[in-house]
Protein backbone atom coordinates (compact mmCIF):
# COMPACT_ATOMS: atom_id res chain seq x y z
CA UNK A 1 0.00 0.00 0.00
CA UNK A 2 1.26 3.45 -0.80
CA UNK A 3 1.56 6.11 1.86
CA UNK A 4 -0.93 8.37 0.12
CA UNK A 5 -3.71 5.80 0.33
CA UNK A 6 -3.09 5.20 4.02
CA UNK A 7 -5.52 6.62 6.58
CA UNK A 8 -2.92 6.44 9.31
CA UNK A 9 0.75 6.62 8.54
CA UNK A 10 3.31 6.17 11.30
CA UNK A 11 6.91 6.97 10.34
CA UNK A 12 10.03 6.40 12.45
CA UNK A 13 8.22 7.15 15.67
CA UNK A 14 10.30 6.96 18.83
CA UNK A 15 9.23 7.40 22.43
CA UNK A 16 11.68 7.13 25.30
CA UNK A 17 11.02 6.79 29.01
CA UNK A 18 14.38 7.61 30.57
CA UNK A 19 16.80 5.16 28.96
CA UNK A 20 14.08 2.81 27.79
CA UNK A 21 13.00 3.11 24.18
CA UNK A 22 9.40 1.98 24.58
CA UNK A 23 8.78 2.63 20.89
CA UNK A 24 11.86 2.61 18.70
CA UNK A 25 11.67 4.11 15.16
CA UNK A 26 8.46 2.31 14.41
CA UNK A 27 6.76 2.70 11.02
CA UNK A 28 3.53 1.25 9.70
CA UNK A 29 0.47 2.21 7.66
CA UNK A 30 -3.22 1.58 8.21
CA UNK A 31 -5.41 1.67 5.11
CA UNK A 32 -8.94 3.01 4.99
CA UNK A 33 -11.42 0.34 6.13
CA UNK A 34 -8.80 -2.07 7.45
CA UNK A 35 -8.72 -3.80 10.80
CA UNK A 36 -5.12 -4.13 11.90
CA UNK A 37 -3.96 -6.01 14.97
CA UNK A 38 -1.08 -4.58 16.95
CA UNK A 39 0.51 -7.56 18.67
CA UNK A 40 3.50 -8.40 20.77
CA UNK A 41 4.59 -9.75 24.14
CA UNK A 42 3.90 -7.77 27.31
CA UNK A 43 6.02 -4.65 27.52
CA UNK A 44 6.72 -4.52 23.79
CA UNK A 45 5.31 -1.01 23.47
CA UNK A 46 1.83 -1.61 22.04
CA UNK A 47 -0.07 0.54 24.51
CA UNK A 48 2.61 3.24 24.27
CA UNK A 49 2.07 3.24 20.51
CA UNK A 50 -1.70 3.59 21.00
CA UNK A 51 -1.09 6.46 23.41
CA UNK A 52 1.13 8.17 20.86
CA UNK A 53 -1.52 7.93 18.17
CA UNK A 54 -4.31 9.14 20.48
CA UNK A 55 -2.21 11.97 21.88
CA UNK A 56 -1.97 10.75 25.48
CA UNK A 57 1.80 10.73 24.95
CA UNK A 58 3.97 12.84 22.67
CA UNK A 59 6.58 11.14 20.50
CA UNK A 60 10.24 12.15 20.87
CA UNK A 61 10.74 11.76 17.15
CA UNK A 62 8.89 10.76 13.99
CA UNK A 63 5.64 11.69 12.30
CA UNK A 64 2.11 10.38 12.67
CA UNK A 65 -0.25 11.38 9.86
CA UNK A 66 -4.00 10.96 9.76
CA UNK A 67 -5.19 11.27 6.17
CA UNK A 68 -2.11 13.32 5.40
CA UNK A 69 -2.29 15.75 8.33
CA UNK A 70 0.47 15.53 10.94
CA UNK A 71 -1.05 14.85 14.35
CA UNK A 72 2.08 13.85 16.29
CA UNK A 73 2.29 15.73 19.55
CA UNK A 74 -1.17 17.30 19.38
CA UNK A 75 -3.19 17.19 22.62
CA UNK A 76 -5.73 14.34 22.85
CA UNK A 77 -8.78 16.60 22.51
CA UNK A 78 -7.52 17.95 19.18
CA UNK A 79 -6.74 14.46 17.94
CA UNK A 80 -10.21 13.28 19.00
CA UNK A 81 -11.70 16.10 16.92
CA UNK A 82 -9.62 14.99 13.94
CA UNK A 83 -11.44 11.67 14.09
CA UNK A 84 -9.51 9.25 16.27
CA UNK A 85 -11.49 7.59 19.06
CA UNK A 86 -10.16 5.12 21.58
CA UNK A 87 -11.04 2.72 24.34
CA UNK A 88 -8.78 2.12 27.32
CA UNK A 89 -6.81 -0.90 28.42
CA UNK A 90 -8.32 -0.54 31.89
CA UNK A 91 -11.91 0.19 30.97
CA UNK A 92 -12.98 3.76 31.71
CA UNK A 93 -16.60 4.84 31.89
CA UNK A 94 -17.89 7.99 33.58
CA UNK A 95 -18.98 6.42 36.89
CA UNK A 96 -21.47 8.98 38.19
CA UNK A 97 -23.19 9.55 34.86
CA UNK A 98 -25.84 7.33 33.32
CA UNK A 99 -25.23 5.39 30.12
CA UNK A 100 -27.06 7.89 27.95
CA UNK A 101 -24.84 10.70 29.27
CA UNK A 102 -21.77 8.52 28.86
CA UNK A 103 -22.53 8.25 25.16
CA UNK A 104 -23.43 11.93 24.90
CA UNK A 105 -19.95 12.60 26.25
CA UNK A 106 -18.70 11.26 22.93
CA UNK A 107 -21.30 13.13 20.89
CA UNK A 108 -20.98 16.64 22.26
CA UNK A 109 -17.36 17.56 21.66
CA UNK A 110 -16.20 15.91 18.44
CA UNK A 111 -15.63 17.37 14.99
CA UNK A 112 -19.38 17.72 14.43
CA UNK A 113 -20.85 18.13 17.90
CA UNK A 114 -24.38 16.89 18.47
CA UNK A 115 -26.30 18.30 21.42
CA UNK A 116 -29.82 18.61 22.78
CA UNK A 117 -32.60 16.27 21.80
CA UNK A 118 -30.71 15.17 18.68
CA UNK A 119 -27.95 13.91 20.99
CA UNK A 120 -30.48 12.03 23.11
CA UNK A 121 -31.85 10.10 20.17
CA UNK A 122 -28.38 9.48 18.71
CA UNK A 123 -27.14 8.23 22.08
CA UNK A 124 -30.11 5.89 22.39
CA UNK A 125 -29.45 4.54 18.92
CA UNK A 126 -25.79 3.94 19.76
CA UNK A 127 -26.68 2.15 22.99
CA UNK A 128 -29.05 0.00 20.99
CA UNK A 129 -26.29 -0.76 18.53
CA UNK A 130 -24.05 -2.17 21.28
CA UNK A 131 -26.98 -4.03 22.82
CA UNK A 132 -27.55 -1.75 25.81
CA UNK A 133 -30.83 -0.06 24.96
CA UNK A 134 -32.30 -1.20 28.28
CA UNK A 135 -29.47 0.39 30.27
CA UNK A 136 -30.01 4.06 29.32
CA UNK A 137 -30.53 5.23 32.90
CA UNK A 138 -28.07 2.97 34.69
CA UNK A 139 -25.03 4.72 36.16
CA UNK A 140 -21.65 3.87 34.70
CA UNK A 141 -20.38 2.51 38.02
CA UNK A 142 -23.30 0.08 38.33
CA UNK A 143 -22.57 -1.76 35.08
CA UNK A 144 -21.09 -5.21 34.70
CA UNK A 145 -17.62 -5.45 33.16
CA UNK A 146 -18.96 -6.50 29.78
CA UNK A 147 -21.49 -3.66 29.77
CA UNK A 148 -18.77 -1.16 30.67
CA UNK A 149 -16.83 -2.37 27.65
CA UNK A 150 -19.85 -2.01 25.42
CA UNK A 151 -20.51 1.46 26.79
CA UNK A 152 -16.91 2.47 26.09
CA UNK A 153 -17.32 1.29 22.51
CA UNK A 154 -20.57 3.22 22.13
CA UNK A 155 -18.89 6.34 23.45
CA UNK A 156 -15.98 5.90 21.06
CA UNK A 157 -18.34 5.36 18.12
CA UNK A 158 -20.27 8.48 19.13
CA UNK A 159 -17.27 10.52 18.01
CA UNK A 160 -17.90 9.19 14.50
CA UNK A 161 -14.26 8.23 14.27
CA UNK A 162 -12.35 7.68 11.08
CA UNK A 163 -10.00 5.54 13.11
CA UNK A 164 -10.92 3.55 16.20
CA UNK A 165 -8.21 2.39 18.61
CA UNK A 166 -9.16 -0.60 20.74
CA UNK A 167 -6.70 -1.33 23.53
CA UNK A 168 -7.37 -4.90 24.67
CA UNK A 169 -11.05 -4.33 24.33
CA UNK A 170 -11.71 -8.05 24.32
CA UNK A 171 -9.59 -8.87 27.36
CA UNK A 172 -11.32 -10.39 30.36
CA UNK A 173 -14.46 -11.54 28.58
CA UNK A 174 -15.78 -15.06 28.98
CA UNK A 175 -16.14 -17.28 25.87
CA UNK A 176 -19.79 -16.44 25.14
CA UNK A 177 -19.22 -12.74 25.70
CA UNK A 178 -16.23 -12.99 23.40
CA UNK A 179 -18.32 -14.40 20.57
CA UNK A 180 -20.81 -11.60 21.09
CA UNK A 181 -18.10 -8.95 21.22
CA UNK A 182 -16.37 -10.15 18.05
CA UNK A 183 -19.72 -10.11 16.27
CA UNK A 184 -20.23 -6.55 17.45
CA UNK A 185 -16.84 -5.44 16.13
CA UNK A 186 -17.57 -7.11 12.81
CA UNK A 187 -20.79 -5.11 12.59
CA UNK A 188 -18.92 -1.89 13.33
CA UNK A 189 -16.38 -2.72 10.68
CA UNK A 190 -19.20 -3.31 8.21
CA UNK A 191 -20.10 0.34 8.69
CA UNK A 192 -16.72 1.39 7.39
CA UNK A 193 -14.82 2.17 10.60
CA UNK A 194 -11.08 1.57 10.39
CA UNK A 195 -9.66 -0.08 13.48
CA UNK A 196 -6.35 -0.74 15.18
CA UNK A 197 -6.61 -3.27 17.93
CA UNK A 198 -4.09 -4.26 20.55
CA UNK A 199 -5.14 -7.75 21.44
CA UNK A 200 -3.99 -10.97 23.03
CA UNK A 201 -7.04 -13.01 22.05
CA UNK A 202 -5.71 -14.87 19.02
CA UNK A 203 -9.10 -16.19 17.88
CA UNK A 204 -10.32 -12.63 17.62
CA UNK A 205 -7.26 -11.55 15.69
CA UNK A 206 -7.58 -14.41 13.22
CA UNK A 207 -11.26 -13.81 12.63
CA UNK A 208 -11.24 -10.00 12.54
CA UNK A 209 -7.89 -8.63 11.41
CA UNK A 210 -6.86 -8.13 7.80
CA UNK A 211 -3.28 -7.56 8.85
CA UNK A 212 -1.08 -7.64 11.91
CA UNK A 213 1.86 -5.55 13.01
CA UNK A 214 3.93 -7.43 15.55
CA UNK A 215 6.17 -5.56 17.96
CA UNK A 216 8.92 -6.57 20.31
CA UNK A 217 11.02 -4.26 22.48
CA UNK A 218 9.55 -1.21 20.78
CA UNK A 219 10.33 -2.27 17.21
CA UNK A 220 8.34 -3.94 14.47
CA UNK A 221 9.44 -7.53 13.99
CA UNK A 222 6.81 -8.73 11.54
CA UNK A 223 3.89 -7.56 9.44
CA UNK A 224 1.36 -9.33 7.25
CA UNK A 225 -1.82 -11.38 7.40
CA UNK A 226 -2.34 -12.93 10.83
CA UNK A 227 -1.36 -16.38 9.60
CA UNK A 228 1.84 -15.16 7.92
CA UNK A 229 2.94 -12.78 10.62
CA UNK A 230 2.40 -15.16 13.50
CA UNK A 231 4.40 -17.87 11.76
CA UNK A 232 7.54 -15.75 11.41
CA UNK A 233 10.44 -17.30 13.34
CA UNK A 234 11.22 -13.95 14.93
CA UNK A 235 7.69 -13.77 16.29
CA UNK A 236 7.82 -17.26 17.71
CA UNK A 237 11.13 -16.38 19.34
CA UNK A 238 9.71 -13.16 20.82
CA UNK A 239 6.78 -14.95 22.38
CA UNK A 240 8.40 -18.20 23.46
CA UNK A 241 12.04 -17.27 24.02
CA UNK A 242 15.30 -18.09 22.26
CA UNK A 243 15.92 -21.53 23.62
CA UNK A 244 12.75 -23.00 22.17
CA UNK A 245 14.77 -24.55 19.37
CA UNK A 246 17.52 -25.76 21.63
Amino acid at each position, binding site marked *: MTASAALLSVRDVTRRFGNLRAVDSLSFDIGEGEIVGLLGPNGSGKTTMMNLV*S*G*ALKPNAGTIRLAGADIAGL*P*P*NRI*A*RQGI*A*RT*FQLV*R*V*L*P*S*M*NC*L*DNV*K*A*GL*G*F*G*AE*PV*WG*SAADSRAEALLQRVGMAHR*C*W*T*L*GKDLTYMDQKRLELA*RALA*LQPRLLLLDEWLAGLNPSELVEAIELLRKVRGEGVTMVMVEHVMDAIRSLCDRCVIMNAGAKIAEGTPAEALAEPEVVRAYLGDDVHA
Partner: protein
Amino acid sequence: MMALSRTTLFGGVLLLAGVIGFALLPGFVGGYGLSMAINFLMFAILATAWAMFSGPSGYVSLATVAFFGIGAYTVAVLGERLPWGAVLLLAAAIAFLVALLVGLSTLRLRGVYFVIFSFGLAELIRQVVNWYESTQAGSVGRYVFLDITQEQIVWQLTAVLALLFIVGWLIERSRVGFALRMIGDDETVALHCGVNITLIKVLVFSLSAAFMALVGAIVAPRWTYLDPSIAFNPNISFQVLIMALLGGARRLYGPLLGVIPMVLLFEYLSTHFPHLFSVLLGVTFLAIVYLVPHGVAGLIEGYVQRYRKRFPGKRAESDIPKEGAL
Protein backbone atom coordinates in the same frame (compact mmCIF):
# COMPACT_ATOMS: atom_id res chain seq x y z
CA MET B 1 -38.84 16.73 28.67
CA MET B 2 -42.11 17.60 30.34
CA ALA B 3 -40.61 16.95 33.75
CA LEU B 4 -37.62 19.13 32.97
CA SER B 5 -39.68 22.13 32.05
CA ARG B 6 -41.82 21.62 35.14
CA THR B 7 -38.81 21.69 37.46
CA THR B 8 -37.43 24.65 35.54
CA LEU B 9 -40.70 26.50 36.00
CA PHE B 10 -40.74 25.58 39.69
CA GLY B 11 -37.18 26.85 40.08
CA GLY B 12 -38.06 30.07 38.28
CA VAL B 13 -41.04 30.70 40.55
CA LEU B 14 -38.94 30.02 43.65
CA LEU B 15 -36.25 32.38 42.39
CA LEU B 16 -38.77 35.12 41.72
CA ALA B 17 -40.36 34.62 45.14
CA GLY B 18 -36.94 34.81 46.78
CA VAL B 19 -36.03 37.99 44.95
CA ILE B 20 -39.31 39.67 45.88
CA GLY B 21 -38.98 38.43 49.46
CA PHE B 22 -35.51 39.87 49.92
CA ALA B 23 -36.38 43.06 48.08
CA LEU B 24 -39.26 43.72 50.48
CA LEU B 25 -37.42 42.44 53.56
CA PRO B 26 -35.91 45.79 54.69
CA GLY B 27 -39.45 47.10 55.23
CA PHE B 28 -40.19 44.42 57.80
CA VAL B 29 -37.06 43.76 59.84
CA GLY B 30 -34.75 45.90 61.91
CA GLY B 31 -30.97 46.30 61.86
CA TYR B 32 -30.26 42.84 63.27
CA GLY B 33 -32.56 41.20 60.76
CA LEU B 34 -30.84 43.05 57.93
CA SER B 35 -27.43 42.06 59.13
CA MET B 36 -28.50 38.41 59.26
CA ALA B 37 -29.96 38.76 55.78
CA ILE B 38 -26.64 40.13 54.52
CA ASN B 39 -24.79 37.24 56.13
CA PHE B 40 -27.17 34.79 54.59
CA LEU B 41 -27.04 36.30 51.11
CA MET B 42 -23.28 36.69 51.22
CA PHE B 43 -22.67 33.05 52.09
CA ALA B 44 -25.39 31.89 49.71
CA ILE B 45 -23.57 33.54 46.81
CA LEU B 46 -20.13 32.42 47.92
CA ALA B 47 -21.22 28.81 48.47
CA THR B 48 -23.23 28.61 45.25
CA ALA B 49 -20.38 30.15 43.25
CA TRP B 50 -17.96 27.74 44.91
CA ALA B 51 -20.16 24.77 44.06
CA MET B 52 -20.67 25.95 40.48
CA PHE B 53 -17.03 25.06 39.84
CA SER B 54 -15.98 22.66 42.59
CA GLY B 55 -19.17 20.59 42.68
CA PRO B 56 -19.11 19.04 39.22
CA SER B 57 -15.35 19.24 38.66
CA GLY B 58 -14.29 17.80 42.00
CA TYR B 59 -11.58 20.46 42.38
CA VAL B 60 -11.96 21.52 46.01
CA SER B 61 -10.88 25.14 46.30
CA LEU B 62 -9.93 26.97 49.47
CA ALA B 63 -9.23 30.16 47.55
CA THR B 64 -12.73 31.58 48.02
CA VAL B 65 -11.51 34.31 50.33
CA ALA B 66 -8.74 35.32 47.92
CA PHE B 67 -11.35 36.50 45.41
CA PHE B 68 -13.69 37.80 48.09
CA GLY B 69 -10.81 39.88 49.47
CA ILE B 70 -9.85 41.14 46.02
CA GLY B 71 -13.40 42.47 45.70
CA ALA B 72 -13.30 44.12 49.10
CA TYR B 73 -9.93 45.74 48.42
CA THR B 74 -11.05 47.03 45.05
CA VAL B 75 -13.70 48.97 46.94
CA ALA B 76 -11.27 50.11 49.63
CA VAL B 77 -8.85 51.49 47.04
CA LEU B 78 -11.17 52.75 44.31
CA GLY B 79 -14.54 53.07 46.02
CA GLU B 80 -14.39 56.84 46.40
CA ARG B 81 -12.81 57.57 43.03
CA LEU B 82 -15.04 55.72 40.58
CA PRO B 83 -18.79 55.36 40.20
CA TRP B 84 -20.15 52.42 42.18
CA GLY B 85 -21.14 50.37 39.13
CA ALA B 86 -17.66 50.71 37.67
CA VAL B 87 -16.09 49.62 40.96
CA LEU B 88 -18.22 46.47 41.01
CA LEU B 89 -17.40 45.62 37.40
CA LEU B 90 -13.73 46.21 38.02
CA ALA B 91 -13.75 44.02 41.14
CA ALA B 92 -15.32 41.17 39.15
CA ALA B 93 -12.92 41.71 36.25
CA ILE B 94 -9.79 41.71 38.42
CA ALA B 95 -10.85 38.51 40.19
CA PHE B 96 -11.68 36.94 36.82
CA LEU B 97 -8.22 37.75 35.49
CA VAL B 98 -6.40 36.59 38.61
CA ALA B 99 -8.37 33.34 38.53
CA LEU B 100 -7.57 32.98 34.84
CA LEU B 101 -3.82 33.33 35.40
CA VAL B 102 -3.85 31.11 38.47
CA GLY B 103 -6.09 28.56 36.80
CA LEU B 104 -3.92 28.26 33.71
CA SER B 105 -0.89 27.46 35.81
CA THR B 106 -2.44 25.26 38.48
CA LEU B 107 -5.61 23.53 37.42
CA ARG B 108 -3.51 20.62 36.26
CA LEU B 109 -2.92 19.83 39.92
CA ARG B 110 -5.34 17.23 41.16
CA GLY B 111 -6.91 16.23 44.45
CA VAL B 112 -5.18 17.28 47.63
CA TYR B 113 -2.47 19.18 45.74
CA PHE B 114 -5.02 21.59 44.36
CA VAL B 115 -6.65 22.01 47.79
CA ILE B 116 -3.31 22.91 49.38
CA PHE B 117 -2.37 25.13 46.49
CA SER B 118 -5.63 27.08 46.59
CA PHE B 119 -5.22 27.60 50.34
CA GLY B 120 -1.65 28.78 49.74
CA LEU B 121 -2.83 31.15 47.03
CA ALA B 122 -5.24 32.89 49.40
CA GLU B 123 -2.50 33.26 52.01
CA LEU B 124 -0.05 34.51 49.40
CA ILE B 125 -2.41 37.21 48.20
CA ARG B 126 -3.08 38.24 51.79
CA GLN B 127 0.62 38.52 52.53
CA VAL B 128 1.29 40.46 49.34
CA VAL B 129 -1.46 42.94 50.15
CA ASN B 130 -0.15 43.13 53.71
CA TRP B 131 3.36 43.84 52.47
CA TYR B 132 2.20 46.44 49.97
CA GLU B 133 0.00 48.25 52.45
CA SER B 134 2.62 48.41 55.18
CA THR B 135 5.65 49.27 53.03
CA GLN B 136 4.21 51.14 50.06
CA ALA B 137 0.86 52.57 51.10
CA GLY B 138 2.01 53.53 54.56
CA SER B 139 -0.60 51.91 56.79
CA VAL B 140 -1.99 48.39 57.03
CA GLY B 141 -5.66 49.37 57.33
CA ARG B 142 -7.95 51.40 55.12
CA TYR B 143 -11.22 53.16 55.81
CA VAL B 144 -14.23 52.63 53.59
CA PHE B 145 -16.53 55.63 53.88
CA LEU B 146 -19.23 55.09 51.33
CA ASP B 147 -22.79 56.21 51.51
CA ILE B 148 -24.28 52.77 51.12
CA THR B 149 -26.95 51.54 53.50
CA GLN B 150 -27.66 48.03 54.77
CA GLU B 151 -30.84 47.98 52.67
CA GLN B 152 -28.87 48.73 49.54
CA ILE B 153 -26.42 45.95 50.35
CA VAL B 154 -29.30 43.51 50.73
CA TRP B 155 -30.76 44.58 47.38
CA GLN B 156 -27.46 44.33 45.55
CA LEU B 157 -26.68 40.91 47.01
CA THR B 158 -30.17 39.70 46.10
CA ALA B 159 -29.62 40.79 42.51
CA VAL B 160 -26.22 39.05 42.37
CA LEU B 161 -27.64 35.85 43.86
CA ALA B 162 -30.44 35.85 41.30
CA LEU B 163 -27.94 36.44 38.50
CA LEU B 164 -25.74 33.66 39.84
CA PHE B 165 -28.64 31.21 39.84
CA ILE B 166 -29.48 32.09 36.25
CA VAL B 167 -25.85 31.80 35.13
CA GLY B 168 -25.41 28.58 37.08
CA TRP B 169 -28.56 27.12 35.57
CA LEU B 170 -27.47 28.06 32.06
CA ILE B 171 -24.04 26.52 32.61
CA GLU B 172 -25.46 23.36 34.13
CA ARG B 173 -27.60 22.61 31.09
CA SER B 174 -24.97 23.69 28.55
CA ARG B 175 -22.13 21.69 27.07
CA VAL B 176 -19.75 23.56 29.39
CA GLY B 177 -21.54 22.20 32.45
CA PHE B 178 -21.68 18.73 30.95
CA ALA B 179 -17.96 18.84 30.17
CA LEU B 180 -17.25 19.94 33.74
CA ARG B 181 -19.10 16.88 35.03
CA MET B 182 -17.10 14.69 32.66
CA ILE B 183 -13.92 16.26 34.03
CA GLY B 184 -15.07 15.53 37.57
CA ASP B 185 -15.67 11.90 36.66
CA ASP B 186 -12.60 11.21 34.53
CA GLU B 187 -10.38 13.85 33.00
CA THR B 188 -8.67 11.42 30.67
CA VAL B 189 -11.94 10.30 29.16
CA ALA B 190 -13.07 13.92 28.78
CA LEU B 191 -9.84 14.75 26.99
CA HIS B 192 -10.13 11.82 24.59
CA CYS B 193 -13.74 12.76 23.85
CA GLY B 194 -12.52 16.07 22.46
CA VAL B 195 -13.07 18.29 25.51
CA ASN B 196 -10.61 21.15 25.95
CA ILE B 197 -10.41 20.49 29.67
CA THR B 198 -8.10 23.40 30.53
CA LEU B 199 -10.38 25.90 28.85
CA ILE B 200 -13.51 24.57 30.56
CA LYS B 201 -11.94 24.42 34.01
CA VAL B 202 -10.34 27.87 33.82
CA LEU B 203 -13.48 29.44 32.39
CA VAL B 204 -15.84 28.23 35.11
CA PHE B 205 -13.26 28.74 37.87
CA SER B 206 -12.80 32.37 36.77
CA LEU B 207 -16.52 32.95 36.48
CA SER B 208 -17.09 31.69 40.00
CA ALA B 209 -14.20 33.90 41.20
CA ALA B 210 -15.86 36.95 39.64
CA PHE B 211 -19.03 36.29 41.66
CA MET B 212 -17.01 35.88 44.86
CA ALA B 213 -15.32 39.23 44.23
CA LEU B 214 -18.69 40.89 43.67
CA VAL B 215 -19.77 39.75 47.12
CA GLY B 216 -16.58 41.09 48.68
CA ALA B 217 -17.07 44.41 46.96
CA ILE B 218 -20.73 44.77 47.89
CA VAL B 219 -20.30 43.98 51.58
CA ALA B 220 -17.08 46.00 52.02
CA PRO B 221 -18.86 49.27 52.95
CA ARG B 222 -20.35 47.47 55.92
CA TRP B 223 -17.00 47.21 57.65
CA THR B 224 -15.89 50.88 57.52
CA TYR B 225 -12.40 49.69 58.47
CA LEU B 226 -10.62 47.07 56.37
CA ASP B 227 -7.28 45.32 56.70
CA PRO B 228 -5.90 42.15 55.09
CA SER B 229 -6.70 39.95 58.07
CA ILE B 230 -10.37 40.94 57.75
CA ALA B 231 -10.72 40.85 53.97
CA PHE B 232 -8.63 37.70 53.53
CA ASN B 233 -9.75 35.83 56.64
CA PRO B 234 -9.26 32.12 55.77
CA ASN B 235 -12.23 31.17 57.96
CA ILE B 236 -14.46 32.43 55.16
CA SER B 237 -13.07 29.85 52.73
CA PHE B 238 -13.63 27.08 55.24
CA GLN B 239 -17.12 28.23 56.15
CA VAL B 240 -18.10 28.34 52.48
CA LEU B 241 -16.70 24.86 51.92
CA ILE B 242 -18.60 23.49 54.92
CA MET B 243 -21.86 25.10 53.83
CA ALA B 244 -21.59 23.85 50.27
CA LEU B 245 -20.74 20.33 51.42
CA LEU B 246 -23.54 20.27 53.96
CA GLY B 247 -26.05 21.38 51.36
CA GLY B 248 -24.67 19.22 48.57
CA ALA B 249 -22.34 20.61 45.94
CA ARG B 250 -23.59 18.64 42.95
CA ARG B 251 -26.83 20.59 42.70
CA LEU B 252 -27.28 24.26 41.99
CA TYR B 253 -29.73 24.67 44.87
CA GLY B 254 -27.69 22.37 47.15
CA PRO B 255 -25.41 24.92 48.84
CA LEU B 256 -28.43 27.03 49.75
CA LEU B 257 -29.70 24.17 51.94
CA GLY B 258 -26.41 24.26 53.81
CA VAL B 259 -26.20 28.03 54.10
CA ILE B 260 -29.43 28.46 56.03
CA PRO B 261 -28.57 26.26 59.06
CA MET B 262 -24.88 27.11 58.97
CA VAL B 263 -25.29 30.89 59.04
CA LEU B 264 -27.48 30.46 62.12
CA LEU B 265 -25.05 28.03 63.71
CA PHE B 266 -21.97 30.18 63.02
CA GLU B 267 -23.79 33.22 64.32
CA TYR B 268 -24.58 31.36 67.53
CA LEU B 269 -21.05 29.99 67.89
CA SER B 270 -19.28 33.26 67.22
CA THR B 271 -21.39 35.16 69.76
CA HIS B 272 -21.36 32.51 72.49
CA PHE B 273 -17.92 30.93 72.02
CA PRO B 274 -15.81 33.57 70.26
CA HIS B 275 -12.53 32.02 71.42
CA LEU B 276 -13.42 28.48 70.45
CA PHE B 277 -14.81 29.43 67.07
CA SER B 278 -12.08 27.83 64.94
CA VAL B 279 -12.19 24.62 66.96
CA LEU B 280 -15.95 24.37 66.64
CA LEU B 281 -15.68 25.13 62.94
CA GLY B 282 -13.40 22.11 62.59
CA VAL B 283 -15.71 19.88 64.61
CA THR B 284 -18.67 20.92 62.46
CA PHE B 285 -16.68 20.12 59.34
CA LEU B 286 -15.80 16.63 60.58
CA ALA B 287 -19.38 15.94 61.64
CA ILE B 288 -20.72 16.89 58.23
CA VAL B 289 -18.21 14.83 56.28
CA TYR B 290 -18.98 11.77 58.44
CA LEU B 291 -22.73 12.15 58.74
CA VAL B 292 -23.92 13.66 55.44
CA PRO B 293 -21.17 12.97 52.87
CA HIS B 294 -23.48 13.80 49.95
CA GLY B 295 -25.10 16.79 51.60
CA VAL B 296 -28.70 17.53 52.36
CA ALA B 297 -29.51 17.60 48.64
CA GLY B 298 -28.06 14.10 48.32
CA LEU B 299 -30.13 12.90 51.29
CA ILE B 300 -33.34 14.33 49.85
CA GLU B 301 -32.71 12.83 46.44
CA GLY B 302 -31.89 9.51 48.06
CA TYR B 303 -35.30 9.51 49.77
CA VAL B 304 -37.05 10.59 46.59
CA GLN B 305 -35.39 7.80 44.64
CA ARG B 306 -36.28 5.18 47.21
CA TYR B 307 -39.85 6.44 47.26
CA ARG B 308 -40.10 6.28 43.50
CA LYS B 309 -38.60 2.82 43.41
CA ARG B 310 -41.23 1.63 45.85
CA PHE B 311 -44.02 3.25 43.88
CA PRO B 312 -42.77 3.06 40.30
CA GLY B 313 -46.17 3.87 38.86
CA LYS B 314 -46.01 7.44 40.07
CA ARG B 315 -43.77 8.68 37.31
CA ALA B 316 -42.29 7.60 34.05
CA GLU B 317 -39.67 4.92 34.68
CA SER B 318 -37.07 6.89 32.77
CA ASP B 319 -37.14 9.77 35.22
CA ILE B 320 -35.92 7.85 38.17
CA PRO B 321 -32.22 7.18 37.82
CA LYS B 322 -31.66 10.22 35.61
CA GLU B 323 -32.25 12.49 38.56
CA GLY B 324 -29.79 10.61 40.69
CA ALA B 325 -27.09 10.71 38.07
CA LEU B 326 -26.40 14.39 38.37
